[in-house]
């Protein structure tokens, strides 16, 4: 009866006296991390607007570092306050969940971004242009490559310091993405962190054309996929009449109140559910770069400025998988038997294709792109486990993987020749002879990618496969080890190239980085080794963060 009334009230609304709309109740404390970051971003814009050019770089750097650090502190505080465990709540009127996985992922994202910002700010690699130290971003994004405007900008020593606020906005979106507790928030967060990334991709100082092309591709495909995601959201809304995860979950598991016959046509219509779910899944799989939605990855990774690539490769994956986990574990657990087989297929294809295609790559950045695809496959294996173990293993893997990736791309920024970074593999020949240290570090990262014991890569891989096997996905484990074997081949190939082949006369030089990049790389190595040798503490952390709140 009451529903009939509410339906009726839809168009008799005008007649009634306007009802009082309750003010939304927001738990600012629990949203602190996101708010801090976004606030920092806004401040950054103001800085751009009001500070003189000379001062901006340092101001921005300081601002973003402080902002991210503060946000991270907030996350830690929340976790320490028990929000990861018993005090896990849904905040902001059901829009955002503050629970273990969310906090763990937010913490990781913040750390990764902090490191990434260091690499953004690196100014010692490129030779000084007209006496100005420059970073790897265009002097003036809007200027035509090689045009007078650009030359002028270079002469004037302009640099695109906007990258810092952009990055912060992206981080803000990423923080919300895995915590989003309704599909609308999910969508908005997605756009919030995607749009700045599109822009960042276009801002490379060298090889602008490639950079812009990658931006266009990323943008168009990204928009395309988000459209799909949105349509999926629409269908799910149609199915459940609500977009909150818990609401949908209730309908799925059939624990919802009896349905009005008038709405029976849509309410609980499984076709809507299945199609909608599939489309939303697709949107997320696109972001994590799973086959067959992976094709943007190599091009964008290669074209984008390397620091951005590193940032993207690491942070986007974390956010994407975070959202994916929440969606599958909170919204669709009731239909596990529908999505698991599909995800099986996706995982298998992703692992194999990523590994196989990488074998013939000749460009370091593309190589790492394909390897990231293969790794997405491995992580999916953990996702499919559909058990708390699975969740924590995925969390651990993401943490381990993101630092390795960041470190690897930071090393890529160091190997340069006249044309900027020398990313073609042939140029890496004999690097081990020229500068053993850099080569050794890169080798460590590669071995971690390959999952050699005593590196974080192995611990992560083992955790994920173990969870998968216990979840009854033995086949995935077999395929996993097989594709790891294939993958090992091309990681090894790079090592061979660096150490066992004679350096070329016109080979690239290895730039000596400032403390910034050095820190990034050092942290990468440290995390790789620590997580490889003594992972227990972090496994505990991920383990405690293993349960979602509904």
């Amino acid at each position, binding site marked *: 009866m009451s529903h009939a009334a509410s339906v009726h009230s839809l168009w008799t609304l005008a007649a009634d006296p306007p009802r009082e709309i309750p003010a939304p109740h927001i738990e600012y404390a629990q949203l602190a991390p996101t708010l801090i970051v976004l606030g920092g971003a806004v401040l950054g814009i103001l800085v751009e607007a009001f500070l003189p050019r000379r001062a901006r770089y340092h101001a921005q750097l300081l601002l973003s570092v402080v902002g991210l650090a503060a946000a991270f502190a907030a996350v830690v505080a929340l976790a320490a306050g028990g929000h990861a465990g018993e005090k896990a709540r849904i905040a902001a009127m059901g829009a955002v969940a503050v629970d273990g996985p969310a906090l763990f992922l937010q913490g990781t994202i913040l750390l990764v971004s902090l490191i990434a910002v260091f690499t953004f700010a690196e100014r010692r690699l490129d030779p000084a242009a007209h006496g100005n130290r420059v970073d790897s971003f265009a002097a003036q994004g809007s200027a035509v490559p090689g045009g007078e405007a650009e030359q002028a900008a270079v002469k004037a020593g302009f640099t695109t310091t906007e990258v810092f606020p952009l990055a912060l906005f992206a981080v803000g979106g990423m923080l919300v993405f895995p915590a989003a507790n309704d599909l609308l928030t999910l969508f908005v967060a997605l756009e919030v962190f995607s749009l700045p990334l599109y822009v960042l991709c276009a801002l490379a100082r060298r090889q602008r054309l490639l950079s812009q092309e990658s931006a266009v591709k990323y943008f168009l495909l990204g928009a395309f996929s988000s459209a799909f995601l949105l349509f999926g959201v629409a269908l799910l809304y149609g199915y459940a009449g609500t977009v909150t995860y818990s609401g949908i979950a209730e309908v799925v598991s059939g624990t919802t109140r009896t349905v009005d016959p008038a709405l029976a046509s849509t309410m609980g219509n499984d076709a809507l559910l299945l199609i909608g779910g599939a489309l939303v899944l697709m949107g997320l799989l696109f972001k994590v770069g799973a086959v067959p*939605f992976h094709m943007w990855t190599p091009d964008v990774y290669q074209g984008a400025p390397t620091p951005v690539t590193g940032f993207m490769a690491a942070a986007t994956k974390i956010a994407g998988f975070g959202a994916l986990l929440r969606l599958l574990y909170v919204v669709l657990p009731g239909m596990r038997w529908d999505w698991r087989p599909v995800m099986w297929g996706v995982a298998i294809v992703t692992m194999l294709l990523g590994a196989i295609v990488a074998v013939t790559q000749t460009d370091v950045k593309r190589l790492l792109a394909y390897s990231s695809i293969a790794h997405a496959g491995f992580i999916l294996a953990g996702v499919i486990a559909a058990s708390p173990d699975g969740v924590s293993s995925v969390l651990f893997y993401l943490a381990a993987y993101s630092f390795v990736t960041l470190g690897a791309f930071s090393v890529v920024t160091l190997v340069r020749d006249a044309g900027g970074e020398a990313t073609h593999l042939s140029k890496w020949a004999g690097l081990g002879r020229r500068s053993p240290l850099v080569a050794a570090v890169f080798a460590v990262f590669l071995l971690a990618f390959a999952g050699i014991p005593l590196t974080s890569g192995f611990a992560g891989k083992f955790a994920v496969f173990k969870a998968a096997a216990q979840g009854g996905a033995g086949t995935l484990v077999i395929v996993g080890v097989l594709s790891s074997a294939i993958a090992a081949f091309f990681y090894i190939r790079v090592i061979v190239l660096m150490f066992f082949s004679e350096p070329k006369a016109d080979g690239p030089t290895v730039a000596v980085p400032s403390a910034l990049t050095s820190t990034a790389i050092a942290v990468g190595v440290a995390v790789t080794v620590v997580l490889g040798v003594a992972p227990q503490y972090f496994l505990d952390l991920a383990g405690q963060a293993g349960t979602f709140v509904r």
Partner: protein
Amino acid sequence: MENLIGLLVVAPLLGAALLLCGGRRLDKSGHWIGTLLAAASFVIGVVLFADMLGRDGEQRALHTTVFSWVPVGGFQADVGFQLDQLSMTFVLLITGVGTLIHLYSVGYMEHDEKKRRFFGYLNLFLAAMLLLVVADNYLLLYVGWEGVGLASYLLIGFWQHKPSAATAAKKAFIVNRVGDVGLSIAIMLMFTTFGTFAFGPVLESAGDAGEGKLTAVALLLLLAACGKSAQVPLQSWLGDAMEGPTPVSALIHAATMVTAGVYLITRSGSIFNGAPDAQLAVVTVGAVTLLFGAIVGCAKDDIKKALAGSTMSQIGYMILAAGLGPIGYVFAIMHLVTHGFFKAGLFLGAGSVMHGMNDEVDMRRYGGLRKYMPVTFVTFGLGYLAIIGFPGLSGFFSKDKIIEAAFAKGGTEGWILGGAALLGAAITAYYMTRVMIMTFFGEKRWQPDAEGNAPHPHESPRTMTIPMVVLAFGSVFAGGLFSVNDAFLKWLEPVTGHSHGNSPVSALTVTAATVVVLVVGVALAWFQYGRRPVPATAPRGSLLTRAARRDLLQDDFNHVVLVRGGEHLTRSLVYVDHSLVDGVVNGTAASVGGLSGRIAKLQNGYARSYAVSMFGGAAVLIVATLLMRAV
């Protein structure tokens, strides 16, 4: 006393160690050290012998366990020595002849710069050979068995700069290895059958094992014996072994090592007694070989090769005797000892001749040497008379007994074997006479060699002649002494046992027959070589002759079937390994690469095609999900 047995082996071993590791500072004195230690072990042998004579029949055997060698679960191998009459006989022969030949070598190898190493090897051989005969279990015997093999390998290939020598050495070792396979499997079979491989238990409880097992063991032992004693079909290495220095041929390839097979069979008597079929095989091998060797001996112009053939055939006699069982064991050993004397003597003689003739070995380049080297002539002559079994000399007694025993086997076998033995005797007489005439009689046929320096035949130095004289004595009297009221028989019987069998023909008849065939053989040779001059270059000769020169084509068979076949096998396997086994692996890698390239083509850089794949992916995803629900 027991401890002395160990010393017996250790003395020459010490010598070997000293000489081989001693370095240049021993170059001057090395050969004397070696000789001294050989003599030492001879003295020890004599002491032990005296001690043994001090006790009567049954208590004579000494036994001692030195230490536990390989103890693993039920597998208990000890280093232990057993010295009974049989071993004692060998010990005396080995050390005695060994010492003499050391002495001889002092002269013979005087000008060789690697003298020290030579004597080291000789001592090593003595040690191994002694270990072989005093070991108290088959595994330790196996150590000695391969030890002598090693020594013979080193000594045959002593002049390594000659490819022929190196090849001969390798051949000898490998052919012997084939025999050794037999011995090792035999030991394993003993272990699984009796749970041990010590002489005592195995031989005592041999009866309890089934005949099948015994036959198997016995045949395997026979294989081993064939390898070591150069019996058909594993005889091919002995002829080439003559590449080694002559003293080596005398000691190892005539007097001692090659007779190890006879020792093995005699030692394992109670096994063979339990396996008649195996015994049949043994006598067959013996008979075949004694004819084979004799025939080969007739055709060779190389004096050492001729003697090698004769060795083969003489050992054939021994094997034959040993195969006869209790009837023959004693005589096998007896012939072994006398043969040790005269054959060693003959070889030393040959060596002395070569020494005087710039190492010329072709008898067709000798002739009339009796004037130039009288001592050699006399000693060689006595050895010659002994081997052809001239009445009264050693060979006569021992060989005669074997022929008797062969008949005593009884039945058709008896006749066949006896006949073969007689025939062999005739041929022996023939080819030995041939050697004798071609070397010492007739007119001299030697000419200057390539460098134009003609040989000046001369008698060898004392160090060489003395051993020859001593051995000559042995070859004259040993047989007689042994036969004086069957001394040797009584001496060995406690160990080997003895039975007289039932001979269809009287001993006298046999003796007569032997003398007759002997005369025939000598006469034949005389007519062929004594009456008319010997051509300096070998005539083409009959088909048989040519075949005999080539060891009756047995070597060619080996070459074609085994060597060539083996080469083809290995070559094809190398191919298989590279292209098949490895090919699979590399193929997989390549195919992955190809696949990779093909898939990468999809990444064509067109954003719209990427969008297509996304769209398709979405479609697939939807359909798949729906299907999942449908099914």
